[in-house]
């Protein structure tokens, strides 16, 4: 258990700059999710925290102690590698026990720890096997087990569940969450899975091109993304971005929106003062698919509710909802409607837009307008 401060960490391999000034303050016991597109430097950052790569500049501080120069083994970190990195010459039992033996844990304690972890990860029948005799998902769980057997200051998990089937993934996710609630160990966890990110995190760090774009609670990152990238990256299906103009209508700033040949004036919420002042300018309206739905009678009365009639281009039933594609301002827009309410492609239906949840971005800087 420890806090973790990452202070302006840069990392270059030769001439290529991978990490460009990472700053993170992580409190003791926090569960941090690190997301970002492939190749943005997540694993590199994990390696820097663990001491497996030396940061080019900047400092890593664990438990108020500067460990920038410390050896990996002295940092007391357990890590699940993206590539598993199981020891091929040892069986599963040995793989899990190796770190415990080195740290001089008594024999009987090692045995009980290995068994506890094996039960947790449902790999008990595999303990005598070599890694080469395991499936990808089984290997991944062994990699997980090797980390969980230890009681380190910090856990680093690099996509630890990516290779599991859907059911097992959900089970393991719950186990990790329970484990964290019990142990309260600081965790930094990389994932590409949106649900994993939202459900596990105390805070989410969204990374792009070696820089942290936003670092906040899941709800913050989801509802208040600071820029177009974060808004588009979080959430699946991703947020709709519609270029549109701010216009004055009946003495108030509105968004002018054309849907299938008809013009609408969509309200801009009061809190978006900065947007209301941009009359005559083009902005990017960001609105999530679930905010554009079929008309729900009790909810369509609010001040920031609007409705438009759109012709359906494509429908994609997902079971719980049907994703419906329409065109607004000649740009494709995903809407999320109840399967029973969804009409067929080619038909027109009325959609209700909750502009309260709309956010606006500057088309030049791509930052949120505030």
């Amino acid at each position, binding site marked *: 258990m420890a806090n973790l401060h990452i202070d302006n960490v840069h990392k270059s391999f030769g001439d290529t700059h991978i990490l460009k000034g990472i700053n993170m303050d992580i409190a003791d016991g926090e569960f941090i999710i690190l997301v970002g597109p492939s190749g943005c430097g997540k694993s590199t950052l994990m390696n820097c925290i663990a001491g*497996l790569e030396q940061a080019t500049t900047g400092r890593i501080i664990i438990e108020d102690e500067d460990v920038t120069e410390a050896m*990996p083994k002295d940092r007391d970190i357990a890590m699940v590698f993206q*590539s598993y*990195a199981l020891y091929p010459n040892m069986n599963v039992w040995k793989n899990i026990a190796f770190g415990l033996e080195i740290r001089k844990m008594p024999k009987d304690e090692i045995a009980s720890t290995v068994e506890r972890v094996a039960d947790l990860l449902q790999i008990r029948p595999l303990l005598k096997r070599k890694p080469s005799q395991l499936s990808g998902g089984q290997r991944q769980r062994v990699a997980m087990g090797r980390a969980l057997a230890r009681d380190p200051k910090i856990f680093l998990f690099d996509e630890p569940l990516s290779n599991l089937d859907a059911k097992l993934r959900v089970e393991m996710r719950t186990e990790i969450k329970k484990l964290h609630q019990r142990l309260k160990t600081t965790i930094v966890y990389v994932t590409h899975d949106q649900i994993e990110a939202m459900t596990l995190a105390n805070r989410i760090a969204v990374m792009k091109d070696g820089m942290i774009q936003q670092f906040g609670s899941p709800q913050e990152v989801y509802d208040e993304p600071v820029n177009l990238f974060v808004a588009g990256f979080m959430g699946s299906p991703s947020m709709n971005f519609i270029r549109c103009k701010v216009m004055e209508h009946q003495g108030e700033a509105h968004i002018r929106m054309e849907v299938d040949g008809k013009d609408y004036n969509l309200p801009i919420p009061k809190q978006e003062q900065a947007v209301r002042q941009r009359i005559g300018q083009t902005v990017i309206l960001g609105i999530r698919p679930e905010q554009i739905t079929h008309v729900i009678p009790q909810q369509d009365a609010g001040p920031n509710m609007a409705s438009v009639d759109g012709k359906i281009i494509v429908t994609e039933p997902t079971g719980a909802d049907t994703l419906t594609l329409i065109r607004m301002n000649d740009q494709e827009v995903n809407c999320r409607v109840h399967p029973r309410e969804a009409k067929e492609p080619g038909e027109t239906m009325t959609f209700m837009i909750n502009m309260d949840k709309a956010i606006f971005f500057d088309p030049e800087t791509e930052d949120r307008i505030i």
Partner: protein
Amino acid sequence: MTVKHSERRYSEVTGRAVLYAILIIVAIYYLIPLAIMISTSFRDMNDIRFGHLIDLPSSLSLEAWRMAWSEVQIGARRQLGLRPYFINSLLITIPAVTISVIVGALNGYVLSFWRFKGSNIFFALLLFGCFLPFQAILLPQATVLGKIGLSGTIPGLILTHVVYGVAFTTLFYRNYYVSLPGELVKAAQLDGAGFWRIFWRIILPLSTPITVVAVIWQFTQIWNDFLFGVAFSSPRSQPVTVGLNNMVNSSTGEVRYNVDMAGAIIAALPTLAVYIIAGKYFVRGLTAGSVKG
């Protein structure tokens, strides 16, 4: 369709037949001298004198083997036969192979997983050692051995072979190790293991194929070496290759083909044994090391 199909099959079969025919011819070409050597070594001198030079033995005689091993007078040496030379060769080869393989493994380990500033230059210089011809280091090495008082001794020969061989063993191990995932070492570091423990517990157990390659390579190189053996030895420390040469050249009177052949086989036997015991790994190890190297 079907015609074409069977045509292809047909051509595949003939291709294979031609390939095998060539391989068999080549194999025979290489095996005939060996067969003649073996057969000659079991004949007695009368048989050779009055019969054909190349013939099967009329009776199995071990006389020539005994002579070559322990009775032939070689040069002015008091001990008879190839035996003392053979023992010298063992005394040189076993430590030299052991040391050069261990040093090579350690070098490869460091150069693959514990890179330091200039380690690539270091490796390039080491590689240079592989291309160095034997002849080029004769004089400097003689001077060095003289300076450190190891001229003409078995330790001197061991040292020479180790120095020369480390370039190769390092190359083998380094190319093998870079094909291992570097995360293994990282994971072990996080598990708390240090430099030596990672080497012994993780890396070395994965090194069997390349170790077999390195041992075979070094063993044959050192055992079959003649030049260093001639140049840096004294009569007391000469290896079996030199002994064999002296035996063949110092025989007075008629040439005793059977003894010469038996001696040659004795000198070649250990390398043959190493190949037969470890050959299967050799082929496997060569490819394992080179795929990603």
